[in-house]
Structure formats: structure tokens, C-alpha cells
């Protein structure tokens, strides 16, 4: 089987998985106690006539299976539904928050992957050195701290203490931009956005980099004991050639798998970090929508998140196919 059919197979599986996920999301929110019909039924402020009218307007008076097919049909046309709360199409509401989340998560993701893998390789190659010991210690200490706590610590330290004590640099502790910064020109605005991005990004990235490099370190240490490393050395390759041509690629294989898996966790972390730093992302919006029972928005957000997660997984699997010949030539 070649690479093409491998990719085709993976795309097909991802599509099936997505369909299943979307179906589960739909039924979950129509069966749970906070379901949309109940929300109207429970809200005493909504007069019965209005309630009836709304149920008809949102198609909530139809039987569940019919609602499901209407939902699927709309979804195919890119229509995620209509947010009760925001009084806007769900896609539009998510469209406002998603770029911020993608900025935060995307940047963090790239930094995690690149720095994490390189740092992991670096410390693994120097296993047992002071640097490695320091790394292991840092990882274990940082890992023991909840993300929320680290966030609050950063806020207190770099946002409050630094400013209170006139440190040369401090960082904003809430929001994604200074009000009015968009009128200051492109580069000052970009700078303002990056300045606001710094602290949440740091919290996400430090934990991500440490986690990934820890994983990479373990993989590489294992790989370095493999026989093909001895073979490579016996050929006369120098250490760098052994590391990069033979050890690195093999050690990176499991990391690629976990990259895909970690996207879900990253989104979970984003909810926390966005809340701690009052960052205007999808995670926080989703949390708010859940609390306010804006079910089309919750459903839409989950559909998007499921899509991003599956895309991430698919991407990882395709990369894996390129990197590991055992997968694509099975």
C-alpha cells in the first residue's frame, strides 16, 4: 500500500470519526437536562406564547430524529445554527473568538513542538549531565503545579509585582489588546497584541515544552540503546550524524503521534488559561455558552473543536506516514 492510499484511508477514517463525533454532540445536548426545549420551558420570564413561537422558530417542536437530519443538512451547508444568546449565527460568534484561540494555541503549539523536541534531544544526548538533572528537576516541579496556579503566579509576579516595583518590563494581566490599540498603526498594534499574548503563552508553552521534551528525552534515550545506533556508529558516523540521521527521526515518531493526541488537551488547557488571563478565546466562550445553556453555540463550538482535533490527528497521522515507512508500506 502506498502513501496515497494510506492518506486516503486516514482521511476516510477521520471523516467517519467526525461524523460520529458530530452525532454524539447533537444527541448529548438534546438528551441532557439542560436541553434547549427545557431551557425555554424552565424560564418563567418567557411567556407561553413567546415560548411556543420560539420553539417553532428554532425547529425545536419537531421530533428528535427530524431535528437531527435538519441539523446534518444545515451542517453540510456550513450552517452551525443560531446562537440564542448572541443573536447571531454560531459560525459568526465562533469566528470572533477562534482567531484568538488559534493565535494562542497555534503559537504555543509550534513553540512546544519545535523547542520541546530540540530541548528533549539536547538533554537526552547529555544524559546524566548537570543540565539534564536540572531539566528533570524543573520538569517534575513544574508538572506538580496546576496550570491555574502557575497562571495566577505569573500574573502576580510579572503583571503586578513587576509593575509595583518598577521592573524594566512587565506584562498585561488581562485581555488581548489595549483598548484603542488598533488605531495606533500596524506595528504598534501587533506589538500590543504580542505583549498581551506573552503571559498566557508562557504558561502554556512552558508546560508544553517541558512535557514534550520530557517525552522526547525518554524516546531518544531508548532509541540510543537500539542496535541500529551501534550499527551506525560502527559505520564510522560521528555523533551528530548518528543523532540526527538515525536516532532523531526514530525518537520523534512517538512524539508525532502524541502531537495529534495533545491537541484535545491543549484546548482543555486553553479554557483554563483563557479564563485566568481573561483572554477572548473560544475556550472561554464555550465555557460561558455552557453556563448560559446556549446550546447551539455549545454544539457549534464542539463541532469546531472536534474538527480541529481530528484535523490535528489526521495531520499527525499523515506526517507519521511520511516519516515512518513501516506505516505506509504495511
Amino acid at each position, binding site marked *: 500500500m502506498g502513501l496515497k492510499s494510506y492518506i486516503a484511508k486516514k482521511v476516510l477514517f477521520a471523516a467517519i470519526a467526525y461524523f460520529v463525533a458530530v452525532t454524539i454532540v447533537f444527541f448529548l445536548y438534546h438528551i441532557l437536562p439542560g436541553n434547549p426545549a427545557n431551557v425555554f420551558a*424552565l424560564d418563567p420570564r418567557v411567556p407561553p406564547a413567546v415560548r411556543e413561537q420560539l420553539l417553532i422558530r428554532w425547529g425545536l417542536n419537531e421530533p428528535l430524529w427530524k431535528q437531527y437530519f435538519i441539523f446534518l443538512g444545515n451542517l453540510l451547508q456550513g450552517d452551525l445554527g443560531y446562537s440564542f444568546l448572541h*443573536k*447571531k449565527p454560531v459560525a459568526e460568534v465562533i469566528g470572533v473568538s477562534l482567531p484568538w484561540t488559534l493565535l494562542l494555541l497555534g503559537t504555543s503549539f509550534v513553540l512546544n513542538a519545535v523547542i520541546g523536541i530540540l530541548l528533549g534531544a539536547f538533554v537526552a544526548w547529555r544524559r546524566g549531565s548537570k543540565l539534564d538533572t536540572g531539566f528533570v528537576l524543573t520538569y517534575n516541579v513544574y508538572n506538580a503545579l496546576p496550570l491555574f496556579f502557575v497562571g*495566577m503566579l505569573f*500574573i502576580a509576579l510579572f503583571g*503586578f509585582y513587576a509593575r509595583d516595583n518598577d521592573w524594566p518590563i512587565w506584562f498585561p494581566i488581562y485581555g488581548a489588546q489595549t483598548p484603542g490599540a488598533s488605531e495606533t498603526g500596524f506595528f504598534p498594534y501587533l506589538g500590543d497584541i504580542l505583549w498581551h499574548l506573552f503571559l498566557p503563552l508562557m504558561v502554556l508553552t512552558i508546560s508544553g515544552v517541558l512535557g514534550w521534551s520530557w517525552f522526547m528525552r525518554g524516546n531518544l534515550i531508548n532509541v540510543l540503546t537500539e542496535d541500529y545506533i551501534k550499527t551506525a556508529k560502527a559505520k564510522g558516523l560521528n555523533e551528530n550524524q548518528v543523532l540526527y540521521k538515525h536516532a532523531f527521526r526514530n525518537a520523534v515518531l512517538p512524539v508525532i503521534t502524541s502531537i495529534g493526541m495533545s491537541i484535545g488537551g491543549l484546548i482543555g488547557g486553553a479554557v483554563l488559561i483563557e479564563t485566568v488571563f*481573561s483572554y*477572548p478565546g473560544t475556550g472561554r466562550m464555550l465555557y460561558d455558552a455552557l453556563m448560559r445553556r446556549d446550546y447551539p453555540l455549545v454544539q457549534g463550538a464542539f463541532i469546531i473543536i472536534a474538527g480541529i482535533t481530528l484535523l490535528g490527528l489526521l495531520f499527525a497521522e499523515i506526517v507519521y506516514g511520511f516519516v515512518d515507512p513501516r506505516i505506509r508500506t504495511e
Partner: protein
Amino acid sequence: MNKKLITIAAIVAGFIIALSPSLMVIAQEPIYGGTLNTPLEADAHALNPFTYGTTYEWYVLNHMYDSLVTLNTERQPIPNLASTWTHNDTYEQWTFTLVDNAYWHDGTPVTIDDVYFTFDLLLNDDAIPRRSWLFDEITSLDIVGTDQLVVTFGWGPKPADVLFDLATTWIVPESVWDSVDLYTFANDVNPIGSGPFKFVEWARAQYFRLEANTEYHLDGPYIDFKVLPIISEVETQYYALSVGDIEVMGNPPPELEAVAEVDPDIEIHESLQDYWVYLGLNQRRYPNNVKEFRQAVLTGINRSEIVDIIRYGRGMVSPASCSLPYGPYYNPDIREYDYNVATANTMLDNLDFLDNIGDDGIREDANGTDLSFDLIVSADAQVSVDTCRFIQEYMLDIGIEVNVVPLIWDVLWQTVGGTGSPTNTWDYDWAFLGWVGFWSDFHPSWGRWLFSANGWWGSDTVNIPGWNSTARWEVTALADAILYETDEVEVKILIDEMQEIIAEDLPYLPINILGGVALYRTDEFKGWILGPTTGPDNWETWLAIQLVVAPEGGPGFLALSAIVTLVVSVGLVKYRRKKQ
């Protein structure tokens, strides 16, 4: 001129120049400028003044929209878009006169047609929820002349009802709202109101930016901008307040309140919230329907300890009448239920609820059934669950067993029948719940809303505690009488009586009134207006607040004031000499 005179004049002038900023205050000359930053804990969803659903949305909208009448921090009606209002002797006909200098943010004048349009919309459009029950009672709306709206009711509601409920409805411009779908209009692009602040920008989940309405028809605002950053975590809000990013915040955690106490630039304001929590004994079940039993239970609860420990001393023990302890309608002579274990035990002994069966420390009722109750409470609110655990302990001291059952809110609300659904079963023993927004301190209809069998919450469809003693019908009759009574003195007497009955019969076992704490900075802005039930960040403050120090007064300004003060002081000295 002699030298002495000049010397004295110079010294006086120097003093005056040095003190000029404070003199400005004495002179009540407003200082214009500045940006006031007041945080929101969560974002708004839309800016629709008819369908908003959160306090955050109300808060944002209140900057931009005005009503005929506005409530001040003392909860008294003050003129806003209506310069005056009158009513006939029977209260059936109300006439509001529109001010002549109010403008929409787009520059067009606010007309009586806009007012009529808004009221008519709420009266006749089914798609939007009415914010006031009084719309149901309106029989006609009429425009008289060019600036008067006459509202006619089928009977005569009292001034409190009309002014607080109906006249506080935000007025919207007809030009915008006559062409939109009221229910689905998000109004988030360029909301046009006539309020003290104009919309500039809404960065979703980040901030609102508002600018002062310089054409505003009332005095103020003096600040240039108001920014409402959205800061989710209260700790972060505190840090932001500490460094001066924001000027005010609400409900800091107690430990941060303690820190704020020592900051010379931060002041603390405590207030009461219109929010009280109660223990609901389902009186559809025995022995909850025994009045003396309810009284014994309330006597057995150490409510001040709950306030002190669980609420960190914020708020207060609720009066047994469930009314807020200030305002014109509060009756202080009602029965009190001070915590006393011995009294509570005696009360239960007198009921013959003794621990006859077994020696388990749990009393039995007249049927020989253990006094053992499930207490359901919202699992979403840890404070409520904690309160229930305290109640559980207190009850053990008087021989009553309580099992705390935390439930998710929807399930809880359905179980206690709060939904008013025809399929209600009210399948519970005790429930821990709260009421918010019933304005008992100034509203004569307060008792009707909560207790009258003719009101929604006290009706047979809801009636959460299942109150059905003769007292219920007495209260219902009083509520009806109050509704139609036009003599204020008589109203007060009726409400006093109602409160006495409620305090005696205890349909609800009120635990505590919640308190609010706000922190605000005083170094940059002055003119915060505070009230017993409002924090510093309120509508009156928005109009009054101004910078402590004039922004960048510039050398010209200083020189001018120096010259003025010099001339004045020289004149003063001369005058004095002449007198001598």
C-alpha cells in the same frame, strides 16, 4: 502702594496659586477629562435592551440608554427623560412630560413619538418579554401635545409601581427599532441610545469602549471615556485595581479585602444586596406544615454564625418577614427568632415531638416518625452547600436529622416546582434557595409578588414552600388591599400587618441577606456616589465622577489662574486696608 501691601499680596497670591486645585473643588468647577475603567466579570452577548439576560448586559446598556425616570442610589425616582410626571387622584392616569433637550447619539432629538413607540412595542409585541408586570394593566397610551405621554391603567397602581417598574423602561429610537426583528436584533454594531455614554467599540470578550455623550441633557458626565474591560478572575481584578488599571471592583475575596484596607488609595464600601436566602420547608408534608415546628427550626439555626463564618461577615441575618431592613416599608416590630437551642428544644417538646423511640437523639413527630429530612441544595454554589452543612449541625442539637443532598440547579428548580410546570410534584422535604430582585425595601407590591396566592410565586402553580395556612389567605387579602389602596399611610399600615403575619407564620425560613463589598480608588477620580444597596460604580457616579487633578492643565491655565488670584488678593488686601 507701600511695600508691605505688595509683600502681603505676593504671599497671599503664592498660597492661592499653590492651593488652586483645591480651590477649584471648593468652587465646584467641574474638571473634564479622564478615562474611567470599570471591569466586567463576563462578556455581554448582545446589546438588545429588550431581551438581555445577564446583569453584565444590563450594566453595559445602562450606560447608553435612558429611561423616563431613573432610580438614584437611595432608590428614589429622579427625573431623566421625563422632566416631570403627574397622576390623577385615582392613579389611573399618568402623564409624563419629556425633556426638551435630549438627543439620540446620532444627533437627532428624542421625541415623544420614540417614547410612545417603545411603550407600544412592549405593550403589543409578543416576541419580546415585558420587563414589567404593569404592561398587562395598561388600557391605553396617548400622546398629548408635543411632549407628553399619557398612560392609562384599568385601575390605579401606586407611584412606586409605576415609577420603579414602568418608568425605568429604557427608551429606544423608533428610527432604529421599527424596522428590525426585535428578538433577533443583536444591536451590537452601533447601538443608538440617549444615555450619558456613546458606544465606541466592543471587542468581544475583551472590553467595551464608551465615550461621554457631550450633548447629554443632564449634568455630566465629566469624564471623557469609560472602558469596561472584561476580567474573569476576581484576583486579577484586584491586581488591576492595585496598579491602577481599573478604578473599581466588586466582591473581592476576604483576604484581598484585608490587603486593600491598608492601601491609602483604595476605599471599601459595604452594601446590602437585594438577595436573601431561605430554608424552604415543604409544607405539603407533615410536620413542615406545623407553624410552631417551623418556628422551632428557625430558632435552632445560628444565623449570625452563618453570616460571620460562611459569608465572612458580609450581609446580615434576614428579618423573619423576609423584607430588607431599610426603606419606607420596613416594619421593625416583627417577631424575631434569635438563636437559642434551649428555646428551640422547648418548642419541640411543647409540640410533643420527643425522642421516644430508641435513644438515637432524634425526635419523632406525632406519628412516631423520626424528624429526619433531606435538604436539597444547588451543587453549583458551594456557599449554599456549606450553609446547609451548618444547618445540619444545628439541627442535630435540637434532635432533628438532616441529610444534605446537593443537586444540579435545573433538577433542584424542577423539584421544588419553581418552573411552574403543570406536572410539578414538589417531591422534597426541605430546600435551600434564595430570592433576588424583589425590592422589598421600597416596593409596596413586594409582598404580593412573593406571598400572594394571586401572584406568580405564591400561586398554586408555583408556591415553592407549599404555604397554605390561613395566614396565606390573610396575606393574599392584604396584598390585594395594598394594590388598590391609594393612601400612603394606609398602605404602610397594611404592609406592617403583612410583615407581622409573615414573621409569625414563616412561609419561608429566611437565613441571611447577602452583602456586597466594593473597592474603589480615590487617587485619580473623586465624586463616587454610594448607597446602602449600591456599589460605587452606579449611574449617579457616572454622571458625577471627575478627575482629582485637571489633566495637563498646561502653563496657560496656571498662568491665568495665577493672574486671577493675584488680582483678587490684591483687591482683597486693598479692601481690608480701606476698611481699616
